[in-house]
């Protein structure tokens, strides 16, 4: 029966995706970029919307929420998966509200009136059935996919606004967004880039070869030399794994030292991060769940009586950051919470 085939096909794909997620985390470093991850997740969610059996928006949201929980549990460090799930949930809410006829705007306004009358809104159960809801949701997800495809280019287009000639720019490790950003600026301007290699996996080397191939003057330095060279650096431009709700970062190991050195020399710290990396988590201290303590075979081969720590991520507080450049433009870290309230619904923060 065609219905059953579709369902088994869907479950197969979901299982394959989950297996992929689990495998991706146990390798040495991320297997795929976040952009790819976001796109794959959105494709899968679109497929679920199209092929799963649901009758009302509430059912669909329940299904997606369940799948989302499973996906985030498979790989907790990959936050883009959860972010995309939340975006899709918000899309469903919006389309449902539109179908019902009520404007989504009035629901979102955090007014005193809304707080006082909060009791009414919890009655919302999303139980009504609308014929065109499925088509609308899928169309909105397609728009989301177009947005995802254009994020790197949108960010790279802003490069010339921020980089002038004869600058010395420092970057850490490897970020596809920053690479595109710098390459775009290099088409018109001449500047110098210093890349910190980011041991133990030394992704910085790949970044440096990529940049030097398009003719950018690049220098590779060891992580230990970051403070020593910082006095000659005009700007620090880095990418990140996640942007947290308070404007802080969850970035690759060593970024906090870079941020502190930049603050000491009053060097601006600019983060190039697309909006899909924004995650509604707030961490004030770097707890152990934030880091995947990797198997450190590149770090130490000998002694077994020694504790070896090899954290993958660092927490960078928002006070150290000067600017966020995302696909919707530049923003200060203090504005991130507002952007987040436009992307995700408060009830979806906890899947």
């Amino acid at each position: 029966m065609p219905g059953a085939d579709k369902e088994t096909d869907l479950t197969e794909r979901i299982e394959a995706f989950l297996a992929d997620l689990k495998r991706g985390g146990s390798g040495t470093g991320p297997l795929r970029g976040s952009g790819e991850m976001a796109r794959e997740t959105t494709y899968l969610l679109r497929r679920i919307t199209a092929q799963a059996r649901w009758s009302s928006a509430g059912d669909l949201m329940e299904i997606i929420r369940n799948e989302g929980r499973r996906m985030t549990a498979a790989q907790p460090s990959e936050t883009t998966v959860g972010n995309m799930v939340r975006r899709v949930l918000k899309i469903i809410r919006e389309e449902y509200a539109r179908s019902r006829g009520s404007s989504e705007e009035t629901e979102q306004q955090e007014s005193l009136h809304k707080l006082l009358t909060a009791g009414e809104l919890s009655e919302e159960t999303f139980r009504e059935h609308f014929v065109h809801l499925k088509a609308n949701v899928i169309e909105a997800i397609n728009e989301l996919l177009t947005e995802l495809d254009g994020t790197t280019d949108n960010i790279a287009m802003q490069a010339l606004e921020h980089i002038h000639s004869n600058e010395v720019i420092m970057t850490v490790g490897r970020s596809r967004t920053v690479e595109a950003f710098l390459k775009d600026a290099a088409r018109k301007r001449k500047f110098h880039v210093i890349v910190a290699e980011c041991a133990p996996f030394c992704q910085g080397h790949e970044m440096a070869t990529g940049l030097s191939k398009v003719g950018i003057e690049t220098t590779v330095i060891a992580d230990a030399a970051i403070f020593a060279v910082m006095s000659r650096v005009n700007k620090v431009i880095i990418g990140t794994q996640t942007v947290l709700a308070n404007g802080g970062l969850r970035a690759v190991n060593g970024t906090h030292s870079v941020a502190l050195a930049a603050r000491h020399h009053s060097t601006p710290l600019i983060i190039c991060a697309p909006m899909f990396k924004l995650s509604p988590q707030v961490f004030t201290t770097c707890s152990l769940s934030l880091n995947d303590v990797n198997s450190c075979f590149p770090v130490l081969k000998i002694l077994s009586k020694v504790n070896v720590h090899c954290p993958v991520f660092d927490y960078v507080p928002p006070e150290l950051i000067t600017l966020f450049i995302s696909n919707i433009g530049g923003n200060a870290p203090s504005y991130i919470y507002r952007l987040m309230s436009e992307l995700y619904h408060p009830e979806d923060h906890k899947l």
Partner: protein
Amino acid sequence: RGVPYQTVTLIHQSMVKRLPEHVQVDDPAVVKRLAKKLERQQIPLRSDYGYKVSLFSHLHQYSRKAPLTQLLSIPSTVIHPSIVRLGLQYSQGIVAGSNARSVALLHAFKQVIRDYTTPPNEELSRDLVNKLKPYISFLNQCRPLSASMGNAIKYIKKEISNIPSQCKEEEAKTKLLTCIDRYIEEKIVLAAKAISKYAIEKISDGDVILVYGYSSLVNNILCEAFEKSRKFRVIVVDSRPRLEGREALRRLVQRGISCTYVLISALSYILPEVSKVFLGAHALLANGYVMSRVGTSQIALVARTYNVPVLVCCETYKFCERVQTDSFVSNELDDPDDLMVTRKGKTQLENWQDVSSLGLLNLVYDVTPPDFVDLVITDLGMIPCTSVPVVLRVKNLDQ
């Protein structure tokens, strides 16, 4: 009435100093002058290797694969064999670390003095100093001299020139050998004991101590503290490309001290656990800046952010009259090929020489500003960073 006048002339003597050649590589006149001097001394000139980052065009950058000794004729008539061996050990990194290099240098000079015979019609005090000059040039070419080595050489030269002319050769040689032994004993061995004594007062039970790389002095302190039954554990921070922390780790674990090992990028992760930071120094400059292995300033900065006390341990013979404010004007560039690494079977930077816009920078030293350092432990006691010129002045008056 005579004393103030003398101190003024002392200050004048130390102010007029010529800029050393090894920080003027971008000046062709200086390079030519050096080449002529080396030709006169019959020492080969070592050539620079690889693309140098423009910020450091005033420094040498040598390759470890092309040691100076390959250009020498064997056996060398000009340079004593123990000096040749020492030069090779320096350039290949077999003898590394401020104290180790100074001690090796002094032992090599002892051998030179033992084998020395005064030629006829010459005075030992003048001729021996002239004999040492090409050796020092050679060692400088193999690897730029450290501040501690510079001070040791100054001491030896002074002792040699103070030998009275009527002194017989054998007597003079024994006198010099005892002087050198005494220098090593006083300035390095006993100083280490004194510093350990002071430092152990600062270590309490339950401490978590962070150390960086391999400093013979800091290792000594930790081992002695462990012997005196202090309960502490150590976190060893290491950095590429030298990875000297492994040596420190090995020695500490051998003694039975419980250790943790991290790379310098994990500093923010590990610092909340740390109660004290102990750092070694390559030299202490007269404006209070601490010159040490690259990465030290980063550790001091992050430790200051987390309000962890930073203690620098340094013997007084490493104090230097130079002043420096950043890590660029005077530094050492190590072999850039050391930065290459193979991960997952791929060496990204394998052909870095072929790409004209790619440069590798392998710095050896950096300077830490005195506001990051809380205390300096020396053999003369525990002083703040800013008291370094006071100690230098006291030492100068003594001599």
